[in-house]
């Protein structure tokens, strides 16, 4: 069940990255629709964070360290909002590049989370 969430969040992050990368390619800043997209990805990461903690409370354990697992969950949750705030301050295509980079970083975090939790 956790792996399904990891996959969904990772794919959504890559879609967000592609979308904002497209905006940057067309020389556009992030717009309302992009922020809605970021919100969707962030909600997925939040669900994953809560779901991961619920699993831990119920006594399941990640293959690797629990501390690392929680740290990655928190990092995954904070990743896209942080990039979003930066893009609010930079109303050029470079703000879009930042969010695209944020999406790629989140996708990498999801791959790591998949390894840390274990199949």
């Amino acid at each position: 069940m956790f792996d399904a969430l990891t996959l969904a969040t990772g794919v959504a992050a890559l879609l967000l990255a592609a979308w904002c990368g497209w905006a940057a390619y067309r020389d556009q800043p992030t717009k309302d629709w992009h922020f809605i997209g970021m919100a969707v990805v962030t909600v997925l990461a939040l669900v994953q964070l809560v779901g991961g903690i619920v699993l831990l409370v119920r006594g399941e354990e990640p293959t690797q360290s629990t501390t690392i697992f929680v740290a990655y969950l928190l990092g995954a949750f904070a990743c896209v909002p942080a990039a979003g705030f930066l893009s609010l301050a930079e109303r050029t295509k470079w703000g879009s590049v930042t969010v695209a980079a944020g999406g790629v970083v989140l996708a990498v975090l999801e791959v790591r989370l998949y390894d840390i939790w274990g199949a």
Partner: protein
Amino acid sequence: MTSGEPDVAPGGRRERLIGGPGIVLVWLYGVMVVGAVSRSAFQIATDFGRAPLAYALSAVAGLVYGFITYTLVRGGETARRAALVCCVAELVGVVTVGTWTLVDPSAFPDSTVWSDFGVGYLFIPVLLPVSALYWLRGRAPRAGRAAA
């Protein structure tokens, strides 16, 4: 800030280093700060004896990343020069450690942020200082401002 300070632009404000492409650099450096600092803090706290050299190097890398992020956000000529020096140090570090890990893997029982030129971090550790140096050089006083 006093008006006579050299790193204050004629307009009364420090030269911004985070406009345009700079914001992407700040973001990536910020990610590396969190990655390197939290990683080394965890490793040093839990199992320092296993690979002291690798963990210490990750901690140093995290500090360097933190300082560069701070200088970029602060802006101004002094900060720009400090960032340039740190980016050169960072580049030397990643190339040295990257080569070292390939030549003598036994010195590193566990990997660092800079192992194999940062392959575990999508080569960001080696690409970042190069792009930062390019960006910071372009922000030098009397350089082509119109392009920005």
